[in-house]
């Protein structure tokens, strides 16, 4: 039996996503497919404690990385929007580090920096170069007529969405990164 679940996680919510997938597996639902931006397909299974980990890699997936991760005991489930999904039964991880993809603070922080650089920055650039100028044009009443109204509402919604995303992800990613500082 399979079921499809729609749930949205931002680029700063990957730790929550890992916990959620683990929770689902412990309830007898293992993830089989992830489709952008927020569609998850689960298959019923024996309830089990399985650790899920996400790795962000903007480069194309390197074969030798997949080989190494599987040597370390991880199963590669699939990829979605630069994220790679891995899992392993909790009882196969003898130490805390074996249950992690990154064992030191430097490499954990490096992944966060990578997310900021390749995901957060484009978001900010689009906001500054397109969403914000259009928002000011709306405030100036430059868009008129019925299409102007539709356009205005659309850009206002976009403006709110972007402000929310940038603040939410910005604060959260910084918090995660600060945790890995000495």
């Amino acid at each position, binding site marked *: 039996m399979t079921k499809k679940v729609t749930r949205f996680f931002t680029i700063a919510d990957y730790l929550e996503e890992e916990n959620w997938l683990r929770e689902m597996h412990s309830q007898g639902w293992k993830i089989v497919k992830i489709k952008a931006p927020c569609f998850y397909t689960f298959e019923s299974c024996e309830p089990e404690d399985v650790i899920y980990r996400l*790795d962000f890699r903007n480069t194309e997936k390197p*074969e*030798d*990385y997949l*080989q*190494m*991760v599987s*040597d*370390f005991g*991880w199963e590669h489930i699939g990829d979605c929007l630069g994220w790679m999904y891995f899992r392993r039964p909790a009882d196969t991880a003898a*130490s*805390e*580090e*074996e249950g*992690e*993809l*990154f*064992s*030191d603070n*430097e*490499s954990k922080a*490096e*992944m966060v920096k990578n997310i900021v650089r390749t995901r957060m920055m484009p978001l900010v650039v689009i906001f500054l170069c397109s969403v914000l100028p259009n928002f000011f044009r709306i405030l100036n009443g430059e868009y008129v007529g019925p299409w102007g109204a539709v356009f205005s509402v659309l850009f206002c919604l976009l403006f709110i969405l972007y402000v929310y995303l940038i603040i939410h992800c910005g604060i959260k990613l910084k918090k995660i990164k600060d945790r890995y500082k000495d």
Partner: protein
Amino acid sequence: MDDKIRRIYVPMTESGFYILYCLQTPQHGYGISQQVRKMTAGAVNISAGTMYGALSKMEKDGLIKFHSEVEKRKLYKITELGEEVLSAETARIDRLYRNSKGEYLG
């Protein structure tokens, strides 16, 4: 060893030090992590992502180089530059250790 390499790698991370040390004999990532665990009686565990990141970075910076490929696994080996960095690190750690025992070097 130029200033850039010195700035990045001296001092280096604990994982980095063990990886470089182990690559005095050619090995792949998982082999290194097993050796480090054995050497340290389980005190130092290097995870897959950390290992891969460190190997890629050190290869890019010329501290290690590709040695051979065995069953789809890349084996690496330390370079001359890597050996230079390793001995600079070893000297630094030795100084720390001796100072920590109350020894004065001068």
